[in-house]
């Protein structure tokens, strides 16, 4: 019973944010991918002049429109939460979030909203070239909108391009390009949008398979499967490739998260990659709550190769990162805690000098915050000053481990499904493959699951941080009553569930109607 669970303010705030972010993310990826599938279909229509392709494009455009309309602006709720539930964090991140989100707002509003109208209202009213240009711009606009929020999210993983100003208690952007081309942001952007492409292609193949099962709209279904399978196959290859580069970047900037993804406690050279494994509590576990992998499928040496390109390279484990290793040049969490405390003490000194109105002292202390050595050696560990014991920097290992491996397994399953759909389309046997139709149909929820698992790895793997090494989640939260957050949690649960039901019911009705009934 939920009322019996003693969740703190921080946990309820996190639960609320997770709920709204997950629901928001149920709508977004289909928009990202389906927009490009529409571009391909409309291009086929323009090249062939065939009304069948026009009908096919309009059918999928209708489903795109429903999803876009229901999902649009649900992300704004997350911004409401920043201001109310996460006010300290919101202030602390300063213009790092403000600038990208402002660009997102402008792009989302002007590009998507303007050209989406041409997409829907412009058939037979504008030239074919202008119409497809609008479809292109909607697709590019949707994906570029995603870029900016992902840049902001990547900054939380790897805060770069800014300097902390103690006078305003905010981080100020020093280098926009460093923020934009943050390696985490680049990987994250391509990995995320390609996950949307894969989700959309599996959505199209799944719905098309339903038409084949019902023996309806055969030509449209076959054409759609072919387009989606080819698009999806390429997208899945890029998805896997960007997943690999993402993991390599994580190993550099968030090594604890990386070690948790592999449940690697002891650092190793020639480290093996877990294809899958089952975790169990270790008998003689210390305060790290260490887990053993009791059953695993492993590729020997492959983790070292994938991480550093060399089988003999060392991959740090959780224990190395918590307790440090002089031999490997890894600083312990205790040392980072001490450095963080020095940075916080300096902030206290600054504040007291300011309160006493000692302008000379204020200037001296402020100058220290602007000093690169202080930034690199002390302030970068500022968040550690709130950590009580070194083991607290370790996220929930089983959650991160299972989420990561299930996501990866699903990614490879998607590649197999798309390649088979492509092959069966080309050899002309797809119509007869009834079992495969059912597999495609019941697989529609799987990419949604994989997508959410990916975000769980990102967000839960970063714990205890809201901003890596700079701010733990507990410090970011506003001083609200827990009951207020509980109330809004349930309000959001109701609102989003209603929206999801509305989307599914309107969409299901339109799918059942098929492409023939245009005006109903």
């Amino acid at each position, binding site marked *: 019973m939920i009322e019996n669970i003693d969740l*703190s*303010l*921080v*946990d309820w705030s996190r639960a609320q944010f997770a709920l709204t972010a997950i629901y928001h993310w149920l709508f977004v990826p289909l928009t990202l991918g389906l927009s490009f599938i529409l571009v391909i279909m409309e291009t086929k229509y323009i090249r062939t002049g065939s009304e069948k392709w026009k009908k096919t494009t309009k059918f999928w455009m*209708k489903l795109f*429109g*429903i999803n876009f*309309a*229901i999902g*649009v*602006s649900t992300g*704004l*709720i997350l911004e*409401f*939460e920043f*201001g*109310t539930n996460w*006010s*300290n964090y*919101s*202030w*602390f991140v300063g213009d790092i979030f403000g600038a990208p989100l402002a660009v997102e707002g402008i792009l989302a509003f002007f590009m998507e909203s303007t050209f989406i*109208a041409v997409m*829907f*209202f*412009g058939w037979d*009213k504008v030239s074919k070239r202008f119409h497809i240009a609008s479809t292109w711009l909607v697709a590019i606009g949707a994906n570029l909108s995603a870029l900016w929020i992902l840049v902001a999210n990547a900054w939380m993983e790897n805060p770069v391009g800014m300097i902390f100003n*103690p*006078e*305003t*208690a*905010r981080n100020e952007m020093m280098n926009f390009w460093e923020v934009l081309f943050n390696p985490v942001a680049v990987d994250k952007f391509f990995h995320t949008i390609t996950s949307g492409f894969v989700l959309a292609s599996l959505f199209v193949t799944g719905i098309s398979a339903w038409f084949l099962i019902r023996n309806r709209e055969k030509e449209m279904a076959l054409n759609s499967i072919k387009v989606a399978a080819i698009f999806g196959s390429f997208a899945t290859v890029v998805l896997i490739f960007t997943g690999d580069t993402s993991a390599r970047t994580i190993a550099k900037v968030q090594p604890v998260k990386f070690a948790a993804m592999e449940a690697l406690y002891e650092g190793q050279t020639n480290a093996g990659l877990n294809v899958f494994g089952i975790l169990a509590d270790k008998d003689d576990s210390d305060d790290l709550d260490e887990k053993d992998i009791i059953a695993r499928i492993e590729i020997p040496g492959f983790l070292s190769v994938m991480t550093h390109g060399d089988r003999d390279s060392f991959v740090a484990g959780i224990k190395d990162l918590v307790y440090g290793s002089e031999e490997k040049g890894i600083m312990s969490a205790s040392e980072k805690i001490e450095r963080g405390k020095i940075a*916080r003490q300096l*902030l*206290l000194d600054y*504040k007291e000098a300011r309160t006493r109105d000692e302008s000379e002292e204020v200037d001296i202390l402020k100058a220290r915050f602007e000093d690169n050595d202080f930034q690199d050696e002390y302030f970068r560990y500022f968040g550690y000053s*709130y*950590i*009580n014991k070194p083991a*607290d920097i370790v996220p929930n290992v089983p959650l991160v481990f299972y989420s990561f491996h299930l996501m990866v397994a699903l990614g490879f399953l998607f590649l197999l499904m798309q390649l088979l759909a492509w092959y069966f389309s080309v050899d002309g046997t797809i119509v007869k493959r009834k079992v495969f139709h059912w597999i495609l149909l019941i697989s529609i929820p799987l990419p949604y699951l994989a997508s959410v698992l990916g975000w769980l790895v990102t967000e839960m793997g970063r714990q*205890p941080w809201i901003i890596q090494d700079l701010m*733990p*989640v*507990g*410090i970011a*939260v*506003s001083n*609200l009553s827990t009951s*207020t957050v509980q*109330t*809004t949690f349930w*309000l959001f649960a109701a*609102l989003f569930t209603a*929206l999801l039901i*509305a989307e599914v019911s*309107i969409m299901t*009705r339109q799918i059942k109607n098929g492409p023939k009934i*245009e*005006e*109903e």
Partner: protein
Amino acid sequence: MGFILKSFNNIFQFYGNGFKTMPAWGRKVWLVILIKLFIMFAVLRIFFFPDLLKKNFDSDEERGMHVLDELIIKTDTDD
């Protein structure tokens, strides 16, 4: 000037005709959008999600001092 007015008129008519000839599913979707936006901005934003720092402090300087205090004195409650 005449060209600009004509362009505005054309755009207005384009949108107007689009909405007039919108199929039933489109009208349903617009209804969902309007209800959603009403709940978000007229209910949630006003009654449940004030911008706390804007509401509780008059200037950016006060907001900065408040967050500075929070950063200095707060301890992690997430234990």
